[in-house]
């Protein structure tokens, strides 16, 4: 896979995105590379769940607004837990 643009310094890496969704939205941990499955329905559903909870436009994509929101400092407690 080409270097993912999000890996550019200052943006969230796909690893960080994956960890965010796992830590705060109960995304099932999966060894498969996140960048290969970020468009899969379970991940898209989690992105939508996060966007809905945080009051973002629910697109299911890792758009700029969403990435910006995920960079903000926050509480370590999950937003959605099992």
């Amino acid at each position: 896979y080409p270097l993912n643009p999000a890996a550019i310094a200052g943006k969230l890496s796909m690893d960080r995105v994956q960890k965010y969704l796992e830590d705060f939205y109960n995304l099932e941990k999966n060894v498969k590379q996140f960048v290969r499955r970020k468009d899969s329905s379970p991940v898209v559903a989690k992105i939508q769940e996060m966007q809905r909870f945080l009051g973002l436009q629910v697109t299911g994509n890792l758009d700029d607004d969403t990435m910006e929101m995920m960079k903000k400092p926050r509480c370590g407690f999950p937003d959605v837990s099992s």
Partner: protein
Amino acid sequence: FGFFPYRQKWRKNEVTYRIVNYTNDMKQADVDAAIERALKVWSDVIPLTFTRLREGEADIMISFAVEDHGDFLPFDGPGGVLGHAYPPGPKINGDVHLDDDETWTEDKSGVNLFLAAAHEFGHSLGLVHSSDTKALMYPLYNTNTDLTKFHLSQDDIDGIQSLYGYPPSSPDDPVPPTKSTEQEKPEKNPATCDPNMSFDAVSTLRGEMLFFKDKYFWRKSINSIEPTLYLLSAFWPSLPSGFDAAYELTTQDMVFVFKGNKFWAVRGNDIQPGYPRDIYTLGFPRTVKKIDAAFFHKEKQKTYFFVNDIYWRYDEKSHSMDHGFPRQIATDFPGVDQKIDAVFESFGFFYFFSGSSQIEFDPNAKMVTRTLKSNSWFNC
């Protein structure tokens, strides 16, 4: 707002806290002050008090830590996660951990300790994150918060008061956010003993009585003198407020609530799948737009629905309206000639609520036996 599973909360009003260690970013006295102020944000709106311990095990142990600090939830260095906390309970429960890789400050030049701690104390008291972007319990740290005029949002207050009730002043006094601002007028909580009290709907539920009003309801059990006021959303967040009618079908441990031409079935806290349904599925004509009141008469296995000055009788065994209905209310319930807001049956009597009055009707003698205040059940 939301709660932890089983609505974990402190089962006492005196909660202790201890500042276990300090960050090097701030003077200890400033840390003490920030923690005290952050606890006061909550104690201002609930009956709990917070007492500081200097040693030993306190309910809320507050500590600064970095990276892996022994609870399987390692911190992540500067930025990102600022801290976390645990729900009410023994040992680690109730505790607050703050990431000392942040720069903790008294102002907003770094991470404001007061604001972050106040959020974490919300968890220590039993709240989970809120999706209300104005709420302190919203998960993201809000750098725009005006610290000089900080106040809890109504969402925070509604949530924490659903767990602990109101501060010592009587529940009749509305509890505004710690500092109300022009744009957020605190909604007045209904005064339990208002002589002009009227209800949207009343129902029994598993031996208790529920009195619904706007977004609130009172729960009154046989063995308690006074009722307790709750927010509807604390038990049934997805139900609309301002019901038109409600009744308990005791044979199925179900409460049916009506609003407009829709109705929901609720068992305990759970709304049954497949609801809301149209009231027309019960057999009402399309001319009926809403139900005023309803109750289930166990002896006859019939449910009575009241609409303006007429009523229907529904057979809960055949699941259909009885023939020969609707009938005039005044014909079969002589003396009940006002518009009915709500009704339920108790100890063989029917209680019809109309505005601030309540009519006790004896179905055997077919006569009104008493006229009472609507909130007579509250023992004001």
